[in-house]
């Protein structure tokens, strides 16, 4: 087995050592595709009122509707096809998760680099802020912010970002501090390379590994928290039906045995978040220098 002089190839072969991780990656890719291609692979647009019929409401999985469509996963109380609703719901859930992750990454990186390079009191202040934010659970912060701001996609993303940037700030600051001390910064500076160039070419490779791991977990968490908030009725508004909202819709029907309205969106959520977490786990093991023998 060649140890591969190409670090990327080595990374891929290390990652592939865990079949579970590879399987999860495939699963997540399928979920992602389902979300991206939702309008094209769904048999109906569940939010186009013209396409749904309330008389088709609460049909069991596998039944056929008034218009001849087969509802593989049943319908909800409004007659929407669950499978289509899940595809659309994935879109929103993944979208919110990814968006908040990216924004948190950018904000956190900026703060981290600033803290490391400016140093001194600003650095201490920012890091205290980071510690403070991270000492409160995300659900609490999100709940508080949404209680004050009300519902809405932007508000949910904001609430998520407000806490999650702190993780990224810590990582980037750590890497930036290391880079600041290294000699080739001096060398590069003496070559009159611009600061942003230095940062990009020398800083980024050092943080990439932990950022990837934390970023993946972050997106998984964001998806989960958004679902929880929407389920509780304080997250996304009814006009943006994420998986959380679908599940909460079906809550009242569980007691009467019409489980599919809540169960299937939950399974979709589980697959999305679970596969992402499993991939992140393997990434962490592979990219962790301490475990490399």
């Amino acid at each position, binding site marked *: 087995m060649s140890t591969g002089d190409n670090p990327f190839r080595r990374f891929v072969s290390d990652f592939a050592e865990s079949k*579970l991780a590879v399987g999860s990656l495939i699963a997540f890719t399928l979920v992602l595709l389902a979300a991206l291609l939702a309008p094209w692979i769904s048999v109906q647009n569940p939010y186009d009122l013209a396409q749904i019929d309330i008389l088709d409401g609460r049909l069991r999985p596998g039944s056929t509707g008034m218009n001849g469509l087969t509802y593989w996963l049943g319908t909800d109380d409004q007659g929407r096809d669950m499978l289509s609703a899940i595809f659309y719901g994935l879109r929103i859930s993944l979208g919110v998760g990814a968006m908040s992750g990216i924004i948190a990454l950018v904000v956190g990186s900026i703060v981290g680099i600033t803290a490391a390079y400016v140093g001194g009191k600003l650095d201490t202040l920012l890091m205290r802020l980071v510690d*403070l934010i991270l*000492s*409160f*659970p995300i*659900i*609490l912060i999100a*709940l*508080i912010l*949404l*209680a*004050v701001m009300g519902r809405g996609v932007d508000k949910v993303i904001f609430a998520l970002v407000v806490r999650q940037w702190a993780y990224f700030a810590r990582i980037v600051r750590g890497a930036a501090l290391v880079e600041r001390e290294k000699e080739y910064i001096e060398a590069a500076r003496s070559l009159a390379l611009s600061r942003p160039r230095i940062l990009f070419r020398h800083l980024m490779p050092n943080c990439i590994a932990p950022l990837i791991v934390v970023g993946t977990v972050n997106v*998984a968490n964001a998806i*989960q928290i958004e*679902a*929880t908030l929407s*389920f*509780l*009725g*304080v997250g996304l508004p009814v006009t943006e039906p994420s998986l*959380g909202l679908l*599940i909460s819709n079906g*809550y009242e029907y*569980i*007691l009467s*045995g019409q*489980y599919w309205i*809540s*169960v299937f969106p*939950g399974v979709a*959520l*589980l697959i999305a*978040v*679970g596969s*992402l*977490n*499993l991939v992140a*786990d393997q990434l962490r093991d592979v990219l962790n220098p301490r475990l490399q023998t």
Partner: protein
Amino acid sequence: MTVFLIRRLMQSVAVLLVMSMLVFVGVFAIGNPVELLIAPEATPAEREETIHNLGLDRPLWAQYIAFLKGAVRGELGNSFIHNIPALKLILMRAPATLELASAAILIAVVFGIPFGLWAGLRPNSIFGRSIMAGSILGFSLPTFWIGLMMVLVFAVSFGWLPTSGRGETVRILGLSVSFLTLDGLKHIILPAVNLSLFPLALVIRLTRAGVRETLPLDFIKFARAKGLKTRRVILVHVLKNIMIPIVTVVGIQFGIVLAFAVVTESVFAWPGMGKLIIDSINHLDRPVVVAYLLVTVLIFILINLVVDVLYSVLDPRVRLGELKE
């Protein structure tokens, strides 16, 4: 040690002040305080009076001082819905949440540490690997959905356990607790297990990581060189070393579980603080929201403080100085 305590206390007070300022700014300056604190059904005359009473016509800093004064006295307004002081309402519901959270943490620790030990000692065994895969599930499964599934399976399909609510309670030391009655136990099992999944997964992973980090260390080799039985090496030498970070994490988890109880209480209609806050948010009962905010922040700061102190007490390297030569 005392210097450390005093410093931490001052830090906590500072944090509390900062948080109170944030809450204040959030509610009184950003949100419309008139709308937030005055019942929507009030007549214009009542509004005028309340505005004057609440001092909303005074400058912001004066309002903040008044707010602080009121907060310290425990006066945070009356609930719109229930018409009793918001703080009192919250404190009435607190014991139910505390009971639920304690049960969840108990389950997490009692099962988490042994499982984590096993996964750390025999990482390649079937049981070890399934524990680890299972712990990932614990993070990934959204608590509320699992709660729904539990209701579905245990309550609806099998009919073994009740679907919601809290069981019979018994009063001890002025608090009502429900785990002392069979009916109470039946009611608390599902929500407690549901709430425990997340901290359980965390404790398992933490214990396993601790074991894996500690086993290759020199003093373990030395312990074996002394001829100690493996059982003692694991249960005394390894365990005592990883206990310190585990205890601190469990302490912090208690706070997180308290916050997460919001979800479980909603699913299982458990009459605690969490359900109260959700209902209040949905019914726009703002004084209760503000009161909940402040109480929770306070609890959090307290927990963090206790955990910090606990850490320094438990680790002999921090607690004791150098002996004279």
